[in-house]
């Protein structure tokens, strides 16, 4: 099957730190891929390179065969790759609905106009529909600065969905969410994402989440891929247990 995303021999260094070392990954449409690895293993760097925030030192990234390795985040977003952030990147003084409304504006940026009211019905409806999907409708008119960390995380993911991305990258969707709530949060995310994004890549530290939601796991270690494949196989891989999950089971 032809991969939707194909990264070939990516290299990225920050001074002496190797964040990507001949990294090659193919991601097929419809997969739910989890990236695991210790801090600094290169997971977020990979996400940053795919979304154009960082330029790889060398190597190529292709979306449906089109090279996107040198594109800006804006172009990458326009091509159908969206992402959420480990630390939610929101417009903190605006309300949740306004945050989503800005995202909706982004789907037709040429029409970002002087005369069209920000709260026009179409836009507001779309924003509210997304918030509803995440169960946040009642918080729509609250400014982000009044919302808890877990809620911000969801708003952040909702914004990534506005474009109905073909590939969605989630950077630690459950970090900062309490242990009791993590499954509920992840269920909400997977449920809300389902209609719009068929292919999901998520960075995750929690192995329970990984084994429950991923159908493929890629383990990172020092900028390289240690193991890649079926979640059960990867999580039981001795090297992965030694370097990534720390044998804590």
């Amino acid at each position, binding site marked *: 099957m032809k991969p939707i995303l194909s990264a070939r021999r990516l290299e990225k260094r920050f001074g002496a730190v190797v964040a990507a070392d001949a990294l090659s990954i193919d991601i097929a449409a419809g997969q739910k891929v989890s990236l695991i690895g210790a801090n600094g293993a290169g997971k977020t760097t990979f996400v940053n390179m795919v979304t154009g925030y960082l330029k790889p030192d060398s190597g190529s990234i292709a979306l449906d065969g089109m090279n996107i390795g040198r594109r800006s985040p804006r172009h990458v977003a326009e091509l159908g790759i969206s992402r959420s952030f*480990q630390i939610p990147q929101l417009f903190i003084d605006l309300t949740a609905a306004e945050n989503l409304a800005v995202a909706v504006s982004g789907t037709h940026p040429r029409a970002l106009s002087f005369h069209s009211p920000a709260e026009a019905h179409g836009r507001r409806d779309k924003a509210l529909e997304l918030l509803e999907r995440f169960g946040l409708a009642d918080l729509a008119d609250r400014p982000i600065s009044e919302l808890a960390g877990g809620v911000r995380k969801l708003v952040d993911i909702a914004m990534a969905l506005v474009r109905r991305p073909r590939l969605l990258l989630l950077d630690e969707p459950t970090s900062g969410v309490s242990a009791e709530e993590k499954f509920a949060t992840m269920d909400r995310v997977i449920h809300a994402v389902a209609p719009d994004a068929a292919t999901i890549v998520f960075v995750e530290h929690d192995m329970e989440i990984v084994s429950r939601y991923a159908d493929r796991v890629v383990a990172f270690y020092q900028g390289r891929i240690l193991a890649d494949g079926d979640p059960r196989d990867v999580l039981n891989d001795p090297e992965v247990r030694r370097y990534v999950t720390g044998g804590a089971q």
Partner: protein
Amino acid sequence: MNSFLTIVLDGLIQASWLFIVALGLTLVFGVLKILNIAHGSFYALGAYIAATAVTFVAAHSLPPSVGFVAMLASVALIASAVGLLLERGLLKMFYGRDEVVLLLVTYAVFLILEDVTKLIWGVNPIYATQPYELFGNVAFAGLYYVGYDLLLMPISAAVGFAVWFGLNRTVTGKIVLAVIHNEEMSVSMGVRVNRVYAVAFAFGVLLAALAGALTAPKISMQPGLSSDVIILSFAIVVIGGLGSVEGAAVGAILVGLARAASVHLVPQAELFMIYLIMAGVLMFRPEGLFKREAARRI
């Protein structure tokens, strides 16, 4: 060839005092992350105080060398006091606010000091030329230079070296550098940042005032002095990179040479040249010559 030499020497003389002003500005920015619009006012304050000291000494018919020492000493004393007072009494209240807000606060200080100097020293030009003749004239490559002007170069170099040495080779300096590079980290390591702020700001004021005192014998003190100087020193630190000591040196030399060159070649273009250089540097190296961009963690 002769005019080339003149330009270089004039440029370096200019660069000498400009460097001392810019050094203060860049250090304050490095430590407190404040781009201090009032910095030029401290230069003017130093110049006015020096003039008063020199005039006082002359009025009591003491030798000009005493005047020279008196002007430096009085400036050092008053400037440090003013700096400490302003930082503890005023700036402290605004820490944590947006950097543009802090810029506005220093703009307010600039406005206030502008009128305070007028109230104290009046609006008519003031002179303090006595120390200027102290070191005689020097013939150099067929040109005559005032010894005082030439002396500015080693003084400036000494100040620069002292700051470099202080920052890189002393414990206090390392603490200051730690605050410059990573404030959060230095707080967690037990650095008392408040104290570093106060000392750094006072020292910045001192440097500006010192440059003012050193140039006082060369110029006429009148309203508008501070705003001319702040405009020049902004250009220097932006060219060199905000917060960078080496940058301030290179920026000062570039601006000094540009000023001297335009005075000799195209007198119409002085300010124009300096700001053209600055705009040019910003276009190609937005963070200035000596600063690296830090990527934002997401």
